[in-house]
């Protein structure tokens, strides 16, 4: 049924349909609406779950860790500093091979403190062993949660999935969304059947000490599983499309790339703006396009290669930095083409929209304009020169 809903409400409704038994929550803007809605569902008896208000994000992550370890589907959400405070636990959840879904309402990182959107929080956790999906719009937010649970709990995976949605733009934005029915969700996402769990009937030890004779193989297994997920994700999204009628490959989306000469690579809600600009410029005969990265982890090297190998000029738009080095998405996009014969003439790197600065259509046009044969390195878009004086 098509409904006009706030993004956070959509997440809460979808999570409800996924029937988690345990939800933990700690407030942080702009994630808070999600868990508030879930708290109300539980209070109303619409959702049979244990809702645990914890004293920190560290414990929010630890509570859902304990719940999944006991064999129960669980959910939590956070943003920014909250995600960083969870970081230690998030690495641990992946190492313990526990399937979980966490919504990251993307927000900038302090200092200076800033509650608005960029993607520094989740991008910084790219090495944690979590799958990361970045949503363009609220429909994708809804669908990636469903796909995420199914993927995480697949017996070949048993790994956590982070659904990243741009703070405010998607958490507080309102869109018309095709909401699934409980029957559809039940058909796509069966009840969670753990491979292993804490159960006195069959006692196991979880979280061993692994010395140098054993540790490396556990990390190898994580690496291989995430690489294999590049094959598994499109299989699951195909099944998704059979039930819900929407098609994703779950890794990338190519937008008007055929015959394109200049292409922007980006993740998240900015892709909607870029599509509009692409349409406008295409109408004027400019050969431009967009490559949207949906799965940032695992990173879809082959798919990106296939999409960009014949594009002469590529610009990568990062909404995060790796301070002192190339921007994360730009560096990895370049790595796709190392040693390849077919490759773009130039891959430039642009930074925009940090700390909630709007990425306007003009900003996107500026990036397309700067996509020349001259390579741009971490070029900041829409900086205010008047704020960059040497002294005050």
């Amino acid at each position: 049924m098509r409904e006009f809903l706030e993004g956070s409400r959509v997440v809460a409704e979808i999570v409800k349909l996924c029937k988690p038994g345990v939800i933990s929550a700690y407030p942080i803007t702009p994630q808070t609406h999600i868990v508030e809605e879930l708290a109300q569902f539980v209070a109303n008896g619409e959702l049979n779950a244990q809702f645990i208000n914890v004293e920190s994000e560290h414990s929010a992550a630890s509570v859902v860790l304990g719940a999944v370890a006991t064999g129960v589907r669980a959910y939590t959400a956070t943003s920014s500093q909250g995600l960083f405070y969870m970081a230690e636990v998030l690495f641990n959840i992946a190492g313990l091979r526990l399937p979980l879904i966490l919504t990251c309402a993307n927000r900038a990182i302090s200092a200076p403190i800033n509650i608005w959107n960029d993607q520094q929080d989740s991008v910084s956790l790219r090495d944690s062993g979590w799958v990361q999906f970045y949503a363009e719009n609220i429909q994708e937010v809804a669908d990636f949660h469903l796909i995420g649970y199914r993927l995480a709990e697949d017996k070949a995976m048993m790994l956590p999935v982070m659904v990243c949605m741009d703070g405010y733009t998607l958490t507080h934005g309102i869109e018309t969304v095709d909401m699934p029915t409980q029957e559809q969700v039940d058909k796509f996402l069966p009840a969670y059947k753990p491979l292993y769990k804490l159960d006195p009937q069959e006692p196991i030890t979880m979280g061993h000490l692994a010395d140098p004779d054993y540790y490396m193989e556990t990390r190898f297994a994580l690496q291989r599983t995430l690489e294999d997920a590049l094959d598994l994700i499109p299989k699951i999204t195909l099944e998704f499309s059979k039930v819900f009628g929407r098609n994703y490959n779950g890794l990338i989306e190519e937008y008007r790339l055929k015959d394109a000469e200049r292409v922007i690579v980006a993740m998240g809600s900015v892709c909607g703006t870029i599509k509009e600009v692409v349409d406008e410029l295409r109408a004027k005969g400019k050969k431009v396009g967009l490559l949207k990265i949906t799965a940032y982890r695992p990173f879809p090297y082959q798919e990106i290669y296939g999409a960009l190998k014949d594009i002469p000029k590529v610009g990568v738009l990062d909404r995060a930095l790796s301070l002192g080095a190339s921007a994360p998405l730009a560096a990895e996009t370049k790595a796709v083409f190392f040693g390849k014969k077919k490759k773009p003439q130039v891959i430039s790197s642009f930074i925009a929209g940090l700390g909630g600065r709007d990425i306007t259509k003009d900003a996107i046009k500026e990036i397309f304009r700067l996509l020349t044969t001259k390579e741009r390195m971490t070029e900041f878009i829409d900086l205010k020169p008047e704020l960059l004086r040497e002294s005050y």
Partner: protein
Amino acid sequence: MGHLFTAGHTACAGCGQAIAARLVIDACGPNTIVANNTGCLEVFSTRYPESAWEVPWIHSLFENAAAVASGIEAALIYLGKKEAINVIAQAGDGGTADIGLQALSGMWERGADILSVCYDNEAYENTGIQRSGLTPYGTNTTTSPPGTKSIGNIRPKKPMPEIAVAHGIPYVATASVGFPQDLQRKVKKAISIKGPKYLQIHVPCPLGWRHESALTFEVGKLAIETGLYPLIEYEFGVLISQRKITPRPVEEYLKVQGRFKHLVNNPEQLKLIQAIADNNIEKYNLRAEKQSS
């Protein structure tokens, strides 16, 4: 029935914590799930591919066992199995009183039906005997060494039992590996009560305290009998029992341990430590009544 914490682990000879861990889990029985913070106990009992635990057991991180246990409890409630299964969150003194205190406080405040056990060996023994918030006054640790300008650890123990009582939780007790029956009685009592329970167990560490490994029980008992480690029990905030003692001078306890060796010939410091014991004896009414003849 065999023990639920089995032989073959790699604890040091005379490790008080290993003895206490067995006493605790045997008293709880097989229908128990344990969440364990990082520390000696975790390291010496679960080195892959082995495990000393015959109950379901999980280790996540240094400071989050109380929150992990909360998740286990919530999952058991969801599954309708909580009534039949005990949940334990256990840690050493650092994992309890320092780095793990926030998660522990949150769990207590939420009223979770979980027994938290602190194995108090009074320092970060696993990392090489560093000072914790439960290291006693005067102790020589690797991060509170005595020197020309220091007598060792200059702070008293953080009053964890009182902190637990202040949370309004229904059961708080201290125990000692030197008094195993008392320890197991308290564990059984704790799990019979619904809600958060805190049990702090004094566990001598031959390595860190530098005493003979055969003296674990004696050293444990001396801590109690000098009044330096009162065995007390609170139910719903009320002190309901204390182990009565005929106090022995603190010197008897201090002199058998290398960690206090630097104080034994320092009358001024001995006086200060005796005052800590005397204060405990007064505060908790530890002194046994004189036998009437």
